[in-house]
Structure formats: structure tokens, C-alpha cells
């Protein structure tokens, strides 16, 4: 009987212990961290999604009193700014699945900082204090809460604010065109018509690599659609399609 109780306890507690404890804890100097977008970083050759938060996508625009602004890019820039000022290493507790992480900067939860500034929303499964931070930001009309915006999850499903497409199409985001004229014809990926798709997927040394606007060399990249290069409307669709950030590439099939 005693053995059975011990075994049952072990069976029930082990999964709980496994999910509570992070798979590993990583430590990065801020010089070694690249910001992909407002909720994704790359460090140590790995791309990590900040757990519990969802920031506007890179090409996403928000509206404040009739004035559109590039809230997705702003979130990314603010994350980069926040990390750049850290003197102590950034500590990230990576989840068991290896893709999400709780990152701390000088003892402060980076995700909570971004939510508190109105530059990200809490995910449905986020801890309670994330949602409290979101409520305070909403009440103070900080950041994206100062006007109207599409929730990032809905934006990824192609939902847009009225007039948002026209704004981003006219805003000349990063200047250069994402397509080339081949054989006298202008060819482009149908999704690349959307000017808000800022992630560039290129073929480098046989590897499918994606660049975000904050990556060095992004502006100089010109896509050759005939080779299979294309735009993505965020880092998630790029990764789903099998592309990897420039620091962790994979080979083309």
C-alpha cells in the first residue's frame, strides 16, 4: 500500500514539476541579443519568444485619434532600447519546449515592462500580474491603448484597421521594393502586395534565412522572387514555412 502511494505521488507530481521548472536558464550579454520583433529575440543561436506577451507585428499600424503610427516597429525598437541599456546579463528561463522564455533584466520581467508601457498585450494564458499590468496600461492609455488597434493574434489572421493598408502602403516602409522585374515583367508573391509584410526571406548559401527590419543589412536586401525569396508578414509565418532567422538557418530542400 505504501509503495502504491509513493508511486502514485511520483506519477502525479513529476509532470507538474517538469512543467514548473524551466528546461534551462540562459544568460546573455545585451551585445549578443538581437531583437526580431516586440516579443521575439535571438540569442545564443536560438530564437526565443517572450512568454506571456504578444506584441504588435512588425508591419502593424495602430491608430491614435485618426493618426496612424507604426506600433509594431515601435515595440521592437523599444525592446531593443530596453535591452541595450542593461549592464548585467539578461537571464532567460527557457520553457521545456525550448521556444519560449521568461527573460529578466536586472531582476525586472521584460515582458511585464513591455506590457506596462503599452507596447504589448498579455496572452490569454499569461500569469495574473501580466494582466494587471495590461489593465494599468489600458487605464492610462499608454502606447497601443491610446487609440485603436487590432490584437496581434487577429492581425496575423489578416484582420486590419480601416485604412491601415492604405497607410502602410503609402508609408514607404524601409524604402526599397521587395520585388524585381524579371524578363520585363514585374513579378511578386501575392502576399507581398501587402506593404506591411516586412520580414524578408532570402536564400543565403543554400539556406532559407529571414531578416527583420532591425537586423543589420536588412535595407540592402533585394528579393529575387524567381529564386523563391519572398516576404512574410511576421516572424511566425516565416518560421512556420521553414525559414530560420539569420543566426539559426536551415538548408533549402
Amino acid at each position: 500500500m505504501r509503495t502504491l502511494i509513493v508511486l502514485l505521488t511520483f506519477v502525479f507530481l513529476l509532470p507538474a514539476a517538469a512543467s514548473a521548472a524551466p528546461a534551462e536558464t540562459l544568460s546573455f550579454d545585451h551585445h549578443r541579443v538581437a531583437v526580431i520583433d516586440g516579443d521575439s529575440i535571438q540569442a545564443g543561436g536560438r530564437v526565443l519568444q517572450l512568454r506571456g506577451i504578444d506584441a504588435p507585428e512588425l508591419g502593424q499600424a495602430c491608430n491614435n485619434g485618426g493618426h496612424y503610427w507604426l506600433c509594431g516597429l515601435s515595440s521592437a525598437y523599444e525592446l531593443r532600447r530596453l535591452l541595450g541599456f542593461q549592464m548585467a546579463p539578461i537571464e532567460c528561463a527557457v520553457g521545456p519546449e525550448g521556444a519560449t522564455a521568461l527573460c529578466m533584466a536586472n531582476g525586472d520581467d521584460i515582458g511585464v515592462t513591455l506590457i506596462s508601457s503599452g507596447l504589448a498585450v498579455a496572452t490569454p494564458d499569461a500569469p495574473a500580474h501580466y494582466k494587471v499590468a495590461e489593465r494599468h496600461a489600458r487605464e492610462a492609455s499608454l502606447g497601443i491603448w491610446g487609440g485603436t488597434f487590432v490584437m496581434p493574434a487577429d492581425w496575423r489572421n489578416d484582420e486590419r484597421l480601416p485604412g491601415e493598408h492604405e497607410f502602410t502602403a503609402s508609408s514607404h516602409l524601409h524604402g526599397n521594393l521587395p520585388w524585381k522585374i524579371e524578363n520585363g515583367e514585374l513579378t511578386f508573391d501575392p502576399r507581398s502586395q501587402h506593404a506591411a509584410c516586412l520580414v524578408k526571406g532570402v536564400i543565403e548559401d543554400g539556406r532559407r534565412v529571414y531578416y527583420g527590419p532591425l537586423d543589420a543589412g536588412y535595407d540592402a536586401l533585394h528579393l529575387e522572387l524567381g529564386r523563391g525569396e519572398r516576404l512574410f508578414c511576421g516572424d511566425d509565418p516565416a518560421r512556420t514555412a521553414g525559414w530560420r532567422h539569420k543566426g539559426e538557418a536551415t538548408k533549402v530542400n
Partner: protein
Amino acid sequence: MLDLRPIFLTIGMLLTILAVSMLIPAAVDFAVDNPDWQAFAEACGITLFSGIAMVLSCRTGSNDLSIRQAFGLTAFLWVFLTLFASLPFMFCELGLSFTDAYFEAMSGITTTGSTVLTGLDDLPPGLLLWRGILQWLGGLGIIVMALSILPMLRLGGMQMFRVEAFETEGKMLPRAAQLSAGIVLILFFFTGALILGLWLAGMTGLEAVVHALTTIATGGYSTSDGSVGHFDSALIEGIITVGMVVGGIPFLLFLKLVRGDGRSLLRDEQVHWYLGVMGSVMLAVTAWLWLHQGMTPGQAFRYASFNVASIMTGTGYASTDYGQWGSFPVGVMFFLMFVGGCYGSTACGIKVFRFQVLYASARSQIRHLVQPHGVFIPTFNRRPISDEVVTSVLSYFFIFGVVFALLSLGLNLLGLDIVTAMSGAGTAMANVGPGLGPIIGPAGNFQSLPDAAKWLLVFGMLVGRLEVFTIFVLFSRRFWRG
């Protein structure tokens, strides 16, 4: 009724200078094929037209300003210059809203340095240069006003700084013009030296120019989101620290130095206090960082000296997030931002001389308590301080405190937490730049604040830069009636 013609005549003339200065970033953007050159060209055209129209329609025979006109000029000048300075921010591809554009322009012209812009590292060169030019012009403007106009207005003790050669109350504008030439040359000299030093230290040409402009103006606009910390160079930080300290010294003393009178600079009590307070705080923070934060003495002095000089002069650069240094440095930085630099410099804040006046007055009072029949006269720079000056300074502190409290409460009422609200009000009124906390601290930014909060901060920047009284005088009915 107040004759506004001389006011708008002066504003018109200065708008033409502002318009011409827009051609510099226009030329730079044109050279690199950035479409923002059109935005600067359009803004230049509108500003030039408005300036010339004001000059032509407001010409009067008189070259003088009355005291009331001087008050009006001081207030309206900064409001109107900022309005036109905000045009490039609205017209450029970034397309800032009117609120954000006016905030950025006001922060530039008042040499505050708070910014609503993100992604500075990726911005076109014209915009970065325009921000630097605005702060440089703002720094020049405040020096000229401090020497020629403000002493006549008797704002918070400033009557002490009437230049001996200009004892008469009239002829403010000719005096301003006379002083401007010398001050501009000195500013050019220091700016040029900084450009050369920073370029040799490893900055690109644009970075060196922008940082030189904003360092000597003690403004703090950078070309990077990471401020000066982005460069991670002790040499660059050292050069900029020297530049900031120089920016906080009265420029009239440099003018006298050029004319052969070096003793004035060496014997000036305000400069002694300025350097003394700054040096003491630098040492205290260095000791803290060494003993409590585990830095080496060299590292501790590097970070302490740079950031203390930045906050005290109101420059607002950051080489790191000093909010992470612990409670003592954060408290020190908060109070230091109110102290400011010397009167007659580009620096901001309450100004060192006012603390000297209060100290001298309090010391005299204490001595009088001990020796009731003794005669103890407070002095500043070896000259007696009159009761009128002491009253003026005390009034200034009172009004400053009331405005600070109301501004803090206003920001708090808008939903901002008390740290953000108080540090935001303080940094705006002291024209420093960064506040405290995760939202507007050194690692933060003012973009995410609601528009109403930004307008409150704009008001705070203006009130702080114009020595508080100037704005409130305009709300007096007697002022308009005469």
C-alpha cells in the same frame, strides 16, 4: 493695450533664421537621396514666408522693447518658433502627429531632450541633424536671452546678472544683437572642437556633428536609441562629459576670457559651486558604484561622472540605465536634476546661483540668530545680495514647487504611476530629458504617453525654460492693459 508689433517683428526675423537652418538637413537628405529633403524644403518655404510676412507687417520705428513687450517676446518666441520647427517632423516620411511633432520640437528648442521617436539608429540623416540644430539654436537663444533680456525682467533673482556695461533698461534688442555675435563665435569654437574630438574618437561624421551640437547645448538628443551608451566608449563619454561641463558654465565668462579677462572665470563663485557640487556628487556616486555595485573604481568613475554631469547640466544623455544602480543614486539623480547649471549657460534647471542666494541668506539669518545685534549681509560673487533678490528667489522656488506639484498631479490624474508622473514633471520643468521608471526612464521613451500627458509636459518644458514667471505674467490682466 500692449503693442505686439515689436514682438512679432523679432519673431519674424528669428523665423527667417530658422527657415534658413532647415536648408542644412534638406541638403544632407538630398545628397543621400532621401525623400525627406522635400519635407524640409516645404517647411522652409512656409517658415520663411511667415517670417518675412511678420517682419514686413510689423515694422515699427522703435528699436526698443518695453518690459511688458520683453515678457511677451520671451513667451511668444518659444511658442511660435516651436510651431514652425515642428513642421519637418510632420511633413517627413515618419509623419508624426501634431502632438508628437510639437513635443519633439519643444523638447529640442528648450534643450530638454525627451523624445517620442524610436528607431533613431535607422532614421534619415536630415531628421537627426534637425534635432541637433534645434537644440543648438535653443542653447544659443537661451544664452542671448539670459544676458540681454531676462535680467531686465527680474525673474527669480536674475536682476543680479545685469552686465555692468548695460545698466540702462532700454535697448534690449541692440544689446542682444551685440552679444549674439560673440556668443555664436564661442559656441562655434566649442562645437567645432567637439566635432573633431568625437570624430577622432570613432564616431561617424553625422554622429559627431549631432552629438557636438547637442552636447554644448546640454540638450541630449542622440543619433541612437541607446544614447551615448550605444558607442560603449570611455573616450567618447569623457569628451562628451567635458563638453557638458563646459556647456554649464556662463558663456559671458568665456567672452571675457577671449577679451583677456581670465580672472573672472577663475574667481566666479557660481562656477565654484557648480563644479564643487558636480564633483562631490560624482565622487559619492563613484563610491557607491564601487562599494555596492561591484564595479571597479575606474568603471564606477566612468559611469558616475558621465551620468551625473548629464543630469546636473540637464543634457539627459545616458550611458546606462542608472535606475538600476540602487536607491541612493536614483534619489541623487532625481534631486540633482533640479539643481541645474550656471546662469548664462546653455544648462537648465533651477540654476546654481539661486541655491547660492538661499544659502547665503540662510547663513546670514543663522548668524543673526546667534548675534542679534550683528550685521550680516549675504553676498554673491563678493557683492551684497539685496532683499529684493532674496524675495525674488524665494518666490521663484515657491512657484516652481507649485507648478511641479500641479504638473505631477495632472500626470497622475491621467493614469500615470507616481514615479512616472513626478519624474516626468521634474524632467520637463528642469529640461533634463529622461525621467525615472520603466516608461520614461533612461531605457524608456515618451512615445507611449497619452497625448494629454505630452501636452502637459510641453507646458512644463516651456515654463521651466522661461524661468516660470514669464508664462504666468501673461495670465495677468494688468499685463495686457498696461
